[in-house]
């Protein structure tokens, strides 16, 4: 067993873990953060995407011990003070999800994409989320959601609701 100290969604944890334990399993099984989902075993689907130290990672391809000393944000920590992140809001408004299984990873990947490129074209969005698979939506409304979120996250953008003013920052922990 190896000790891992990590901040997840703003809470500090210290746990003894098996060195082989994946970050995805640590989040789900040790911390009970089941909002992060696992969809494959070859790091293709991206359902388990979280933010580690401000960068999106597929948590099935990171060992829990590699996150030692780090800061993790999962889908469960993205909304702040009960206010949705603009990307979450946009996924709902644009019907960017159906069964919801790819959604946590897709949203986390989109947040990271918008951190790198605040104003992506349709093609840039399509390539930016290429590492996240969805079987329900045909991606069209996901792309629309990401572009809509980009618009709402621009400094000075007209906010439709006060909710959308929350956390217009991509990536990062709490």
């Amino acid at each position, binding site marked *: 067993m190896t000790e891992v100290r990590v901040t997840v969604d703003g809470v500090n944890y210290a746990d003894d873990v098996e060195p082989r334990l994946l970050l995805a399993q640590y989040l789900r099984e040790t911390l009970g953060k089941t909002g992060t989902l696992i969809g494959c075993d070859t790091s293709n689907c991206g359902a388990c995407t979280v933010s580690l130290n401000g960068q999106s990672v597929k948590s099935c391809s990171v060992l829990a011990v590699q996150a030692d000393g780090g800061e993790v944000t999962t889908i469960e920590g993205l909304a702040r003070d009960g206010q949705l992140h603009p990307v*979450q809001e946009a996924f709902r408004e644009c019907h960017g999800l*159906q*069964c*919801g299984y790819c*959604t946590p990873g897709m949203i986390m990947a989109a947040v990271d994409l918008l951190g790198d490129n605040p104003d992506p074209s349709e093609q840039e*969005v399509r390539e930016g989320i290429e590492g996240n698979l969805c*079987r329900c*939506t045909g991606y069209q409304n996901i792309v629309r959601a990401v572009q809509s979120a980009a618009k709402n996250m621009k400094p000075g953008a007209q906010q439709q609701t006060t909710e959308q003013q929350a956390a217009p920052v991509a990536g990062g922990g709490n």
Partner: protein
Amino acid sequence: MTTTAEPTTTSEIGKARVRKEDQRLITGRSRYTDSITPSGTLHIAVVRSTLARATISSIDKSEAEKAPGVHGVFTAADLGAEEIGLPCAWPVTPDQKAPQRPVLAVGRVNFSGEGVAVVVARSAAAARDAAELVEVDYEPLDPVLDMEAASKEGAELVHPDLGTNVSATWVFDSGEAGSGGSVADAIKAAEADDDQIVVRRRFRQQRLIPGFMEPRSCVVDPTGEQLTIWAATQVPHILRTMTTVTLGVPESKLRVIAPDVGGGFGGKIGVLPEEMLCVLLAQKLNRPVKWTETRSECMLTAHHGRDQIQDLTISAKKDGTITGLDVHLLADMGSYLGLVGPGVPILGAFMFNAIYKIPAYKFTCSNVFTNKTLTDAYRGAGRPEATFGIERMMDELAVELGRDPMELREQNWIAHDEFPFTTVATLTYDSGNYEQATQRAMELIDYAGLRREQEERRRSGDPVQLGIGISTFTEMCGLAPSRVLGSLDYGAGGWEAASIRMLATGKVEVTTGASAHGQGHETAFSQIVADKLGVPFEDVEILHGDTQVSPKGLDTYGSRSLVVGGIAIVNAADKVIEKAKKIAAHLLEASEDDLEFANGQFSVKGTDKGKAIQEIAFATFMAHDYPEGMEPSLDSDAVFDPENFSFPHGTHLCAMEVDAETGRVNLRKYVCVDDIGNVINPLIVEGQVHGGLAQGIAQALYEEANYDDQGTLVNATFVDYTIPSAADLPSFTTETVATPATTNALGVKGVGEAGTIASTPAIVNGVLDAIRHLGVTEIEMPTTSQRVWKALQEARGHKAQETPSDTHSPGAGLGSIDPNNPQGEVQ
């Protein structure tokens, strides 16, 4: 740009409501089965066969049993499960051959991935580690892999005791049914007549993997009075009944919960060996038992879809009028029969004639065993295969006759003033307007303009050629009228149930037997109830997916939830109103005949007296004052059994660019205009169409389950089985038009499968249309760039190198990415 109909009224029906379901799904408050772990849960891992066909000479469990955290290792014999067979609910013929499908292999294995033993351990990781320590000795046998060879006399047998590899042969003949002429006569007449033509083609429907995003999972808790099963299933009610049928546990002792379910597409319609193992082990060990598969296990063992060889013959007059259609199918069942697997290709019998007036028709389908993963329902289930066959055939006939393919279709399709129309396959299409949908789709894609561009590119010898793909489809939705299912020997009815409970405070609880796994029932059904009862949308709660909450139902598949389940809700709401009206009349001291009900208000005609339905609900709860002879309750149940299927249709058009030098295929534009009757929620409809298109297009361009000559599935991961990513698809132009269904109260037709059914032939027709003038006449799906290039080489008389498998080569899943412009910069 995508457009959907704008809501024109203030009613909830037709409004583009954002979904109720989303709040928890976008914040991670989801509850998928693998996220449920009762205290004391044991985890299982299945030891799986590495061979497609072999006898098992020995199983050595000793090392695994000693591994840390292991509670036990069990074979079928250890569990006393050797006689247990998983159910097949659809014996398509009285003499259908059905092998026993075991929960764990007994003595022999019949496909690569079949379970041989099960390890139970404290953690999933410990179980998987120990599963690798179980030593199984096999005597390999030659696998039976080619369904055509397997169907012949003298073939090596998958199940020697059955004496044949042909499970059943199912025939429909319009001459015998009296719904049309004899197709043999029609073809014979055509062959003897210079003014007629006969076209014969063979098409291949490749094997597909459903690829729902949530791997299958199951938790069984034996600690209550009822055994509770949580399962990633589309069919909790069917799973309960079938668990009883399979294991003998009384149905009343079972509770099945389908919590959040991450997609299904037919792939979660089955009753799984692993689910039954969890029940057996939970009973044996008196502990909760859990199974969650890995993605690779899912690809290998979850049922596959499609896999047919289609031999089609169409006869027509030289003026284009079709005179006969003969369909001969071989359908690969895999090594066992799935829950409804044998019936899936048979559903195609009603759809090969499609939207056309065909005077003579015959459909013959043989279901064949091979040593592969079993096949069963996958989005569209039999109708995509049929639609592909006929829509490809219409293009082939147009080519042979030198006609525009759309014009030829119109010449043969049922005109809008001919509805209701009884087809040669004996179904009565209640409504439709193929002209309307087609005209709009042709406008949206600029059909005439594309034909001009195509001509120009051909003339100039442009390396990038343009093809126009057409699919004018219909489908049968809303499975199904119970009597029709009975006539097809299906092992259940096709009704759906609903209940409405009016709570004391005016809120409404609705239970439905439909079981959503991404469809948005909670939103769409709330809209229906809000309209019917005149209560706010937010006050309606839709409850489903738990046999204790919604005890009666037949679940979600076959685009039935709205068309059957939605109507059950409407009927239950009507009963609530009927009861409330009696109580309202009593309280208002008026005659029932003098009451009107609108927008949630009962009012006395010609007065300002009235009461809201919520007031009636409260008065009924108090029960201090209600009419004699009535129970103090507004709550109502309904079971709706449809009188007919519904028949959505649409016209799908695409512009395909094919690079004649490299074979690169690019889907430039996709337009569809669907007639799904009245629309409850245009946002959800649009989403269903998009997702359906993506899956149908994936069949045409990207996906195939490939087996090697040893019967090993060689692309059993998401690395190799190329499900399209966002970068592989364009944005679609989707619209709807509506001729309301006349056979249900909402005028709805169903939308879940339309996109998948329609799009596959459109794409392939488009690819061939682009390069047919270069001598290419057929390309098997998926029409990857490599296959297109090979076809072009062969058409030019060049020899192309044979590759063992060409659908999971690099780039196969990247059809829309231009290798010369990988970043996709707009030029």
